């Protein structure tokens, strides 16, 4: 019963995240609509709960995006899952403190890995014939705004949550072996 409730809670959270994502992408003007709510959630979950189940949640999110992509299978899901695994390992082994700049840095690293891994897949598997300079320039411009705004939002949210919620408090540190 407890497991079922946990699964139900996670489904509700993911649904709300998707709705929030649609709102940001469709309603807000450029460049604010480049904020990536999913990576904000992933980083806050990693810092707050320190559980590796976030990788499976990320897998589910990127699987849904893969359903609507015209790129070959795996171009969305592999970079996405890879980026979350890397930042989780970074948090556990490198960024052991809990502060707003850790959240911001992890967010920036995750998005950078995700987008660059996607670009690497496109070029490595020779899917790149026809990518014009304008498309690449727009890609990197959007990437800059996505990293800047998302990491700023993550840092700000973590700072506010650390003041109110014990889980994000600075003095609560768990060593994971």
């Amino acid at each position, binding site marked *: 019963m407890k497991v079922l409730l946990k699964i139900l809670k996670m489904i509700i959270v993911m*649904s709300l995240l*998707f*709705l929030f994502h*649609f*709102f940001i*992408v*469709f*309603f807000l003007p450029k460049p604010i609509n480049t904020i990536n709510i999913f990576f904000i959630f992933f980083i806050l979950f990693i810092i707050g709960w320190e559980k*590796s189940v976030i*990788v*499976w949640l990320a*897998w589910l999110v990127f*699987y*849904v*995006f*893969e*359903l*609507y*992509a*015209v*790129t070959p*299978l*795996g171009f*969305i*899901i*592999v970079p996405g*899952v890879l980026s979350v*695994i890397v930042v*989780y*390992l970074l948090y*556990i082994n490198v960024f052991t403190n809990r502060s707003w700049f850790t959240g911001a840095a992890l967010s920036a690293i995750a998005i950078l890995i995700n*987008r660059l891994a*996607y*670009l690497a897949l*496109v070029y490595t598997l020779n899917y790149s014939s*026809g*990518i*014009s300079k*304008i*498309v690449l320039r*727009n*890609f990197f411009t*959007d*990437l800059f705004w996505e990293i800047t705004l998302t990491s700023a939002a993550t840092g700000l949210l973590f700072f506010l949550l650390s003041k109110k919620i014990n889980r994000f408090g600075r003095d609560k540190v768990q060593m994971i072996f």
Partner: protein
Amino acid sequence: MRYRNIIIIFSVVFIIILLRHFGATGWADRKIRFLFNLGSSAVYNISVSYNGGASRFNSVDDLKKGYVELLDKYNKNVVDQTELALLKEENAGLRELMGFLERNDLSFLGAEVISKSSDALRNTIVINRGSKDGVAMNMPVITGGGFYIGKIRKVELNSSVVQLINDQYSKIAATVLNNNKSIGVVEGGFGLSLQMNFIPQNEDILVGNDVITSGLEAEIPYGLILGRVDIVEKEPYQPFQKAILSPYIDLNKIRTVSVLLSS
């Protein structure tokens, strides 16, 4: 997280990719798409209504200028409509005289746009029609009665993904409505504009010329409007000239489209 767990995660990812490739996850995909489409279509429709289909004006002077331009276009349109009606009548008469058959075997399927692209490098939209409605790969998609906006690039049971004309992989055979009826290839991937390449150097292209589909591709009929010439790039000693086009339709604010089922 141990290395074993990382290997397990990536193994699961690759197994799911393989299963999807062979269509084994179809039933789960349909359920997920159904739920996703409900949310995205509701929010997308509200956002298009909120952001409006009309242009925004920064000042009263801009509004007045826009109004005067529109009035000029309307008056010109009235004259063109009259000439067109006369030409149609003459054409019908000539065809009857020559014994030609009428070619009007186009059928349309209306669809709503429920989402935009989820891919950073692509320009695609998702519509709420799929294989169960008769949609198939590479079918052309139009809006506003005759403006070509893209073609179907992915078909599922209840939804399809449309590659827009400003997508980097979009290439269409086109004709300029000038005296020479110049042909070329209209390509996307240039931001909001389109680029028409391989136009013969010796043919005259003017700013303001309309560009339509040439009908040289199997699935795309002749006469669908692509855009208007904004800039002509002609370099001496080059075999071809280029034109930069702007589409008539704002590709970020499309709500309803039609899929051409047969041509």
